[in-house]
């Protein structure tokens, strides 16, 4: 049952959703939390080349930082875990890119830019078509290749 409604020690201040909005950036696996806005594969490709390619390679094939595409069969010795080969949820791309990328300037991208990059990365991994436009409605519906690849053990 819910706990009581008495303040026990009275430390801290109440906070509203409005006050929290700049911090409340998490995206649930089912898409709850995705903001308004949208972006296309084409737009994403341009942003990627400008802001991401220096570390991840021109087409996400990897550079000084992680390979973001391909990866191969996970059961083979040389396989690499990427969005295409490993990630179970597409929403994670939006959440992670928005909070953490580009490395050095995190939380600098607009929501439209993050949608576009998400579309591009999904397309570069051959998960969505080149004419895809990504938004809060479309993203949770994307079927990830390795969606069934995880066993939740919680231990």
């Amino acid at each position: 049952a819910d706990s009581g409604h008495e303040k026990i020690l009275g430390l801290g201040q109440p906070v509203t959703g409005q006050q929290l909005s700049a911090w409340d950036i998490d995206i649930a696996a089912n898409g709850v939390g995705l903001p308004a806005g949208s972006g296309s594969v084409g737009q994403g490709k341009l942003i990627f080349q400008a802001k991401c390619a220096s570390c991840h390679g021109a087409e996400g094939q990897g550079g000084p930082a992680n390979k973001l595409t391909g990866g191969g069969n996970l059961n083979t010795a040389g396989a690499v875990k990427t969005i295409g080969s490993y990630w179970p949820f597409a929403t994670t791309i939006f959440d992670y890119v928005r909070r953490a990328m580009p490395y050095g300037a995190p939380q600098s991208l607009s929501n439209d830019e993050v949608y576009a990059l998400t579309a591009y990365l999904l397309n570069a991994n051959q998960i969505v078509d080149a004419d895809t436009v990504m938004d809060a409605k479309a993203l949770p519906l994307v079927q990830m290749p390795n969606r069934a690849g995880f066993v939740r053990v919680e231990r």
Partner: protein
Amino acid sequence: TAGSLAFNNAQAQFDSQGNLLVAPWTKKTGSDFLTPPYGVPSKYEKGVVRILPTPAAAFPTASRTPLQNLYGIITPNGLIFERHHAGVPDIDPDAHRLVIHGLVDRPLMLTMNDLVRFPSVSMIYFLECSGNGSAELKKRTGTTVQETHGLLSCCEWTGVRLSTVLAETGVKSSAKWLLAEGSDGAAMTRSIPMQKAMDDALLVYAQNGEMLRPEQGYPLRLFLPGYEGNTNIKWLRRLKLGTEPWQTREETSTYTDLGAGGKALQFTFEMGVKSVITQPSGGMRLKQAGFYEITGFAWTGAGKIRSVDVSIDGGKSWDQAALQEPVLNKSLTRFRYPWMWKGEPTVLLSRASDSSGAIQPTVDEVLKLRSANSVYHNNAIQPWLVTANGEVSNGR
């Protein structure tokens, strides 16, 4: 430097007849008080530092604790391993806030002043990165125990029980998971079961008697005793209660365990029972035959260490080591075993068992059913080879 066995027998303080001379430092006044006001180690210990793997990666992931130079169970704050995903933020504690929201009755924002006023506890707990020893899963890579096991430390942590703070916000009965978020440049996030949150989770603000170090989360860190290091979110700014895990990048792409069948285990939080001999260990040299105390650490995310067995003959026979009291829950435990080395080549091993009945496995046992891409939770027995001339090396 390769631990205190590296002390040598310089003859500087003898005259030509072998008589002791009065040391030069005895014949003068030493340095003043407060040089410096916050003290530092002797200059003769300057080799005792954290290190990165060499050659340095473009984006290094972690520096390692010099376990071979540690004594007792406390890791001094200057030597605690570092792991971060976007550098160490420089946080003004007066401007820092913790927000708790989601499935709570009263969303709350707390200053550090608020937090230190809560009833607190101090607990000695180990902290280990789940990637500790990951390279060794594939083949022998490290020379020293710092290289093979150095993503491991142990502190006295002080903070508020998360359950105490959640009593202040109230928790809705639908809350089953909690998202913890850092205020670093990675805004690092992990989903944690509410059960752990209400059990022994802490919001820590101090370590080994003083405020947290910047690289350990200053001014506030989530601490989950026995859980893999990355879940202990540093620079903690936000806790959100929800019904399901968020499936963040750290709990999908990263800290999951690929099995041989191609399926990955998710939310493998608890660190397995493990031990390692730190003296003698890789890179050291036993300068002569004779008595040595074999010593090292044992630990388990499951609770307390029950026993540590040591083998001085490569596993042919095992004998129980002494455990330094007090043996604490989810803390490093120091074990000691007396060894009279006759100069023979041999292999030294340690094997821990814990209060849950688990026994530390061999590396073959660890690898069974794992994918070739398996990275985390290597708690294998570490063999150290000793040659007839006393050189100690990694026997993986």
